[in-house]
């Protein structure tokens, strides 16, 4: 693991009110690598992902202890602007959630928030992100149609384009392909392999083959704890813990 460390959590513990959803998680994410988070439903993968870009801030009773570092700086530090963090750490949600706007305005949304008004620059960057998300050819003639008129798989790639448009440094993906058909899934996987060249990617998935296909590092969570983390090959061929092996071979869910 020679790449530079981009993000990390140190002894991070997370509570929803009195319920401890994550217990003492220490994990590192390196540049230009894909880290897959796996584990049974309810083990805290989404909670973990959402605490990296502080999306959990909007949940009233949520509480974070420990550290979340971005380039060595604590994301939850007192002088940190959460809006800045979210611009640097982009997110793609499990369910496609395009805005009820035109395709163009959907992708341009984050750019406009960043203060870009110049029409030419907006156009260029929208086109570049739609190309990066491998959806340009499908939408280039209908940029002024509603984003809601796209199919689910197209909507998800649009959401990826939207996240990429603001040029984040880290991209968080919460089961981005869980609701998609095999062809759309394959497109998204190719896309992730491509994106890794320029971004740090952290992806939650329930699909073991998918984790094996696209990730460099795999982390296995169980009941709010990080059980094992290693190179993806190692996790899938000779995991050091029996619990991990049972999970990836499907002996418990």
């Amino acid at each position, binding site marked *: 693991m020679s790449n530079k460390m981009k993000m990390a959590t140190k002894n991070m513990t997370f509570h929803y009110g009195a319920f401890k959803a994550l217990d003492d998680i220490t994990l590192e994410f390196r540049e230009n690598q894909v880290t897959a988070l796996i584990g049974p439903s309810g083990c805290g993968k989404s909670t973990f992902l959402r605490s990296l870009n502080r999306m959990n801030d909007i949940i009233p009773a949520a509480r974070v202890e420990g550290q979340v570092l971005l380039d060595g700086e604590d994301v939850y530090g007192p002088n940190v602007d959460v809006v800045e963090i979210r611009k640097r750490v982009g997110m793609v949600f499990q369910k496609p959630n395009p805005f009820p706007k035109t395709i163009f305005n959907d992708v341009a*949304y984050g750019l406009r928030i960043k203060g870009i008004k110049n029409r030419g620059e907006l156009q260029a960057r929208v086109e570049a992100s739609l190309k990066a998300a491998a959806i340009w050819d499908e939408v280039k003639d209908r940029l002024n149609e509603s984003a809601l008129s796209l199919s689910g798989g197209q909507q998800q790639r649009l959401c990826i384009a939207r996240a990429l448009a603001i040029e984040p440094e880290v991209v968080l993906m919460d089961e981005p392909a869980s609701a998609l058909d095999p062809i759309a899934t394959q497109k998204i996987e190719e896309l992730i392999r491509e994106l890794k060249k320029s971004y740090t990617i952290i992806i939650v998935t329930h699909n073991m083959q998918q984790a094996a296909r696209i990730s460099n590092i795999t982390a296995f969570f169980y009941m709010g704890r990080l059980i094992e983390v290693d190179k993806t090959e190692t996790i899938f061929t000779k995991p050091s813990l029996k619990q991990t092996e049972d999970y990836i071979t499907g002996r418990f869910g």
Partner: protein
Amino acid sequence: MNRAQKRRIGEYLIEKWFLFLATISIIVLALIVAFLFKEGIPIFKSVSVGDFLFGQLWYPTDEPADFGILPLIVGSLIVTAVSSMIAVPLGVLSAIYISEIARPSVKEILKPVVELLAALPSVVIGFFGMVVMAPFLQKVFDIPTGLNIVNASIMLAMMAVPTISSLTEDALHAVRRELREASLALGATQWETISRVVVPASLSGACTAVILGMSRAIGETMVVLMVAGGAAAIPESIFDSVRPMPASIAAEMGEAPFRSDHYYALFATGIVLFFMTLGFNLIADYISHKYKQVGTATL
């Protein structure tokens, strides 16, 4: 008879029962409208439609009488317009505050208070306008009477705010959490999220709320009867008194001889009012369809 047959008969009866009830209410409505037209149309034997709608003199008891309802129409429109200028910003902003910004504890108090305003009988609001607002306006602006457009508009706004606020709030509330999250995750602030995503996404609901609030104001009788001043003349300033259509009907119906021209003219005024509120409701309907955002993610 087996169970499936029984169930089918049961469902058939229930369906017909609902159809029957729906038909009854439509028939009653149709009868009211028919009656309105039957009692109103005869005025046009003595006055032409144009003179009735655009005549500037309303002296229904003079000899010969003048039946021009333009002052009444203008009166209605102007109090509705001024009251919406007050009620729309108040209603919409309070809805945004209650639904998006207020802490849960504040929200729990504010929401029932706004809704309580809707429960105030209009005669109480009118009374407040007469006894409190009128002397206040008279003193502050040094005008001959406090019973005028401003007063009526403020009182009507008090009635329309709860309608606009709670309907707008429903519309805001219906905006899916995923959309807010999408916006926040792109580095938008809470305010940018509200103004660029939540409000536009609830536009159809908010417009409907505004128009329904206004249509309530234009049809409202008791308040304008009590505080608009009752002058059947086209106003020159917002401190003039006016006589909106519902006030005119309510005040004069008792003294108009049965089936006299005056009586017919009041019903015809009712027809005009009916078309205006109908128009408002059609516009509300149109807007809510036009801006309706179809579907969530289709998978």
